[in-house]
């Protein structure tokens, strides 16, 4: 057998170099590339146990062209806090300290430290790349796993029967200056939110929808399409919350039926076969969406024209 070697020269403007260890089509990797376009070299990533503990590479190499601080699973927010404190003492106010955690490290084991840092309004940016399960250990459910999904610990015979934990509401309850959702399928929206976050002082949280082809049982070329469908079906709305009070939906979705999103992935096979269950999931999504639209309306005093079409009555 012979090997064909292709020399890959990294783009000088790209701060994520080739040679990283992500799977093909990895949403978490696209998330990082996009984020680094905003942060540039003046950022340190604080990475708890997660896919990104592996993606960056094995010692003595690493793919990110910024400093990386690996830390234990439950400590992303507090390690970032410690680094921020040290850099402040050294007068390095010009750099961003970014906690870079998966959903397990954010929604579950890291929630205590995250709550502490959010409540103290630490001057850090916390980004969670959400692939909706413990993917690095091989697809076990987390509290981010959505209603109806298969994982290795919620098998087809007993798929996930609880809705995804609402992290944005938890952050809003801490009255942090900025919290936003984003998606790799809407890079302009994500980048705008990142830029906004970098201009705010205090605790900033961005929740990025980052599809995982092996974990979601889908082809690796579908990551962006699936991420887009999650938004357009109202499964993962794009919005931001300022000071825990002001809700703004930043993209008005088409309001497609949830099957359109589910059928692209193998993990929703059991729910797709169960019309009653599927209808329940759809009702849940509509209720959540309506609630969010009302919060937007309450924050701004009116609803834009395109909002009407997204409400339940329009389907």
């Amino acid at each position, binding site marked *: 057998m012979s090997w064909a070697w292709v020399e890959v020269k990294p783009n000088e403007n790209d701060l994520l170099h080739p040679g990283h260890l992500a799977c093909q089509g990895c949403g978490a990797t696209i998330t990082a590339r996009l984020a680094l376009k905003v942060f540039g070299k003046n950022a340190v990533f604080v990475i708890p146990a997660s896919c990104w503990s592996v993606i960056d*590479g094995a010692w003595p190499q690493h793919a990110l062209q910024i400093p990386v601080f690996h830390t*234990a699973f439950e400590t992303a927010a507090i390690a970032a806090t*410690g680094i921020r*404190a*040290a850099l402040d003492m050294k007068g390095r106010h010009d750099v961003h300290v970014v906690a870079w955690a998966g959903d397990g490290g954010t929604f579950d084991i890291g929630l205590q430290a995250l709550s502490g840092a959010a409540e103290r309004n630490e001057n850090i940016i916390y980004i969670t790349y959400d692939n909706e399960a413990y993917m690095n250990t091989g697809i076990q459910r987390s509290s981010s796993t959505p209603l109806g999904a298969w994982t290795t610990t919620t098998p087809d015979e007993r798929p996930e029967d609880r809705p995804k934990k609402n992290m944005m509401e938890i952050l809003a309850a801490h009255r942090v200056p900025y919290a936003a959702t984003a998606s790799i399928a809407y890079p302009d929206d994500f980048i705008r939110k990142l830029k906004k976050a970098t201009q705010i002082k205090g605790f900033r949280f961005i929740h990025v929808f980052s599809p995982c082809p092996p974990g979601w049982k889908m082809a690796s070329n579908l990551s962006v399409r699936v991420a887009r469908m999650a938004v357009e079906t109202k499964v993962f709305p794009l919005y931001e919350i300022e000071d825990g009070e002001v809700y703004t939906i930043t993209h008005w979705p088409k309001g497609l039926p949830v099957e359109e999103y589910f059928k692209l992935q193998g993990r929703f096979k059991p729910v797709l076969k169960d019309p009653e269950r599927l209808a329940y999931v759809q009702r849940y999504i509509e209720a959540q969406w309506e609630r969010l639209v009302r919060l937007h309306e309450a924050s701004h005093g009116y609803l834009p024209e395109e909002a009407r079409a997204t409400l339940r009555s329009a389907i």
Partner: protein
Amino acid sequence: MKLIEKSQYTVLKGNYAVAYGVKLARVEVISAYPITPQTTISEKLADMTATGELKARFITVESEHSAISAVIASSLAGARSFTATASQGLALMHEMLHWATGARAPVVMVNVNRALAPSWNIWTEQTDSLAQRDTGWLQIYNESNQEVLDTTILAFKIAERVYLPTMVVLDAFILSHTSEPVEIYPQELVDEFLPPYEHPNAINFDDPRAIGAFARPDYYMEFRYNIQKAHEEALRVFKEETELFAEMFGRKYDTVEEFMLDDADYVLVLAGSTATTAKYAVAQLRERGEKVGIMRIKLFRPFPVEDVRRVLSGRKKVAVIDRNLSFGHSGIFYMETKAAMYGAKDRPPIFGYVAGLGGRDIRPQDIIDMYEDMKRREEPENIIWKGVRV
């Protein structure tokens, strides 16, 4: 006028002695979570940082696990960092104690020895810190409040020379909440002893490295080897720095303290504030003509095997008094002392006493009883309980 003559003499509780040591060390980041009997350290440091007496960031965290995680990170971002805890708090930190060592973060932590629950008990016992002996931290035990202040300063110097985290240990209440005369040194003199902190592998935006990246089996073992070598180096560094400290501050410490040992046939081995009680008892025994002395273990990790052998070889009998217990085996200083003596020349029989758990008093008469019990016994035993009601 020499700098040392500018020292202030005052009366301090052990926990405040810690705080003054931290202040003199010019610590830059502090993070701690309240737990009895550590809390007054945090309170004093919070005051000092609030008034600007100490220029540091104090992070009031939501758990001890976060306290240690914060200071590991700040230490590797280039700031001298400190935390303090006790008992349950130290146990909660366990994961990150290993992390501090692996990441080579020279943080200093004070642990106030307190018994572990259940049953809830806030009084002194050494099991909390000794149970962390395999985490790779240096551990230094103390007998007086002056020693606590001195050791806090020394700990930063030693930790930052070998890039290993260091635990300074003092007894709950007997030291932490008891007032003693303490000399507080002039800042300039401490500055001469302890230069500003630098870490060669700290986060550097001009040389962006990954700190703590995963290492496959082809590299991991070398990291572990380097940590062991650093511990071996730490023994030498401890000797050097305690010598220098004695020259500059006039107080001499060593890995073990030798008390009335010159002609002693019998040796009592112990650590912490019980040594003060034991010294009083031994002085009484000496008046009765008993040839007995004390070896107080100050440095527990790295364990000073050579010094222990030098002191104990050739004695008639040795009694180790442990205010701690490794269930299913014996007192921990006892097993460490025995292991160090294995293969030593003229090894004496070594008797293991367990006393004072959960803060039960160890009185001078108890020390005398244990000494007399050891003299009477023929065969060594791993656990001889003192003062337990059964």
